[in-house]
């Protein structure tokens, strides 16, 4: 996965393919005129989404809080550079994600499992899960299985490296399209596609036993 490193500071504004909310543009204009109350409206509007994204990327709520606050502050400081090619939230997401990624790199890294190693190690994990899923199938309802799947997915998410985790979070949790994600992470759309596929496959591997499969899967055979 030799990919371009993500710059610490976003040099350009991501281009959004979806319409930018007019209300946001008006608020941004007010902020530019010095109306800090207008900015408070924007913060309240998007703070939950930014916070959750930071939480999923950073892995803990304390960091998420600080990152969210920092992201909004940085966005305010740089709002003069916001050219409204994207929505305000995309702009803030770009800043927040980059802050979160920088923070993850700067702190003592948790031991992360490479995607390849994860695939190799998934056998024993899968066996354990098979036993548990059989037990679950006998005694728990579908809701419990889903909850367990969520727990596994959450854990699998945290085992991904930050670049892959960010892509999954932005796509599957925030619903951003590839172009937006590419703009936020400052990588080509092809890289987004590639990272997303690898990340999903890794997560799928973690929950595969709960899906009723007999064993670990590695995907399609070469055609």
């Amino acid at each position, binding site marked *: 996965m030799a990919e371009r490193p993500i710059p610490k500071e976003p040099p350009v504004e991501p281009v959004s393919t979806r319409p930018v909310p007019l209300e946001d543009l008006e608020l941004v204009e007010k902020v530019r005129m010095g109306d800090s109350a207008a900015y408070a409206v924007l913060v309240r509007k998007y703070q939950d989404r930014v916070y959750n994204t930071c939480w999923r990327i950073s892995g803990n709520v304390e960091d998420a809080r600080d990152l969210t606050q920092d992201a909004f502050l940085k966005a*305010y400081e740089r709002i003069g550079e916001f050219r409204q090619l994207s929505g305000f939230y995309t702009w803030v997401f770009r800043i927040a994600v980059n802050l979160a990624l920088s923070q993850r790199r700067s702190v003592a890294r948790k031991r992360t499992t490479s995607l390849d190693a994860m695939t190799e190690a998934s056998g024993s994990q899968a066996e354990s899960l098979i036993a548990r899923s059989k037990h679950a199938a006998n005694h728990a309802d579908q809701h419990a299985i889903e909850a367990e799947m969520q727990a596994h997915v959450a854990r699998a998410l945290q085992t991904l490296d930050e670049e892959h985790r960010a892509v999954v979070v932005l796509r599957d949790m925030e619903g951003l399209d590839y172009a937006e994600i590419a703009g936020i992470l400052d990588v080509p759309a092809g890289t987004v596609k590639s990272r997303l596929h690898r990340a999903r*496959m890794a*997560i799928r591997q973690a929950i595969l036993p709960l899906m009723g499969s007999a064993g670990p899967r590695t995907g399609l055979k070469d055609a």
Partner: protein
Amino acid sequence: MERERMEELLSAYLDDELQDTERAQAERLLKENATARKLLEELRLTSAIVSSLPRHTAPESIAEDVQQQIERRALLDHVPQHRVTHTSGRRTLQIFGAIAAMFVIMMTSGWYLVAHSSREFSRKLLAENQTKMQEAKDSLAANKPKTGATKPSPVSATTAKVDLKKSQSLGDKVATKTGELVAMAPSETFESKLRNQMAPELLQQHSYAQEPVQLQVVVENERQRDALLAKLTTQLGQQQFTRVSDAAARKEQSIPTNQAVYEPGTPGVNYQNTLNRQVLVRARASDVGKVLGDVEAAQPPNAQMMLNVAGNTLEGNQLVKDNFIALSQTQNELSLSASNKTPARSRAQSEALESESDVTLNLPDDDNAASVTSAFLQLVGIDQKTSDELGEKMAEAAKKNSTPTEERDAAPKPESGSFAESNVGPPAPKDETTVADADANAQAAEVEEGGSLVANAMKRADDSRKNEAKEKQAGAPATTLAAAPRSGEFADVYQHKADEFITFVIDIAVAPQDTARPTTDKPTSVASPKSAKPVEHNDNRMEKKQN
């Protein structure tokens, strides 16, 4: 097709992110390959589970914190980056103009207090105290202790030989020593010296170096205060702030209503060379006159008493605090307090604001006035030379406006009334009356009315109560005690309402051998008028008065 390429194709197909040709390719694969179809379903489920992961609500404080940070940064950095790029030059100028104006007000206000409060106040006090001590000496020499209420002594400013030149420089401590003035070691207190039977001589000594330096800073709101504090902290490096307002409020509240709490004299304040002890009293404005009389009656016969309404108490300085940040530095302590300038607010709001406004910055050593002042000057962007020039101008203006010494000396003195030498503290900033003026006015008012300040205060309190009762009957708001022209009395200066609590300080100087030494810690109740029992005194209460 390569396996990974096909998986990527299906992942993108799931997201509807394929070009037409790729989509056709994916659909063909799905049609022909059951494993591909199963993988697509698994990816779909995986994506669905990820998207269903629980979400948290952001802490509510984030928006508030962001807002506060933005405003704080705006103040610290003067103008946010985006405003430079998106606002007109006129707006930028307005912003800078407003900040510059604020700083000029800060400096002039600061100088005003230093020049007027400390210099005039100290000069007057020194003169008065020297005279009083001479009287005490004479009295002791003649072995004839005074009895009854002490007559006030003529004030003679000419007896003070204090070099005040240095006090006119904002960067220096308030005053300097002369041949007559010998510095006390910080660890020594007037009380300890009295106990060592050194009082008569030591009463002549005075350490101006330990006087507080006060700079007053106009602020519009708490955010400005915070910004100033933040910047001052930055300037001063690693110093730590500790809030003291709560402690100050607790102390004030701990004084029983209408009772006197005795404290030893505080070293390093204006009264050092005369203080034997201080009495703290908290009373309703309408009761002050009576309480003063009771306190007076409880003192030894030769006590010299001075009323200091504008002492370092929260309520005594309310008017000042309503309008200024007061930055005062005493020994190794810097107190910075602020409050909202908004004139109309409830008492509760005021107190809430106070609790957020007072800050004490502890500094590492005693000799910090220069560094603090230097940091402050840096903070407001005014160099020492400008400060000195500003100070000289202010001093000249003050000189023109002040009452000539000869006039004050020539003012007739009342024949009775222990509180006739009442002093008010720093003059209210909105009018430019000096302490000397206030004192002269007070004396003139006394003569006019032919009674002591205590009597006058009681009379005013009675009048106030009557007026208040009348207004209540008429549905009108409670009147203030400040209806009369300013005469130097507490009510006139500080405009407390009749039912409002006032905390004030009475400074008492007593000749050493006649000093009554109370034995218990209990406050003396002055509720019973004309109590002749010895006052109670707490020797261990405080060596140094805290904020």
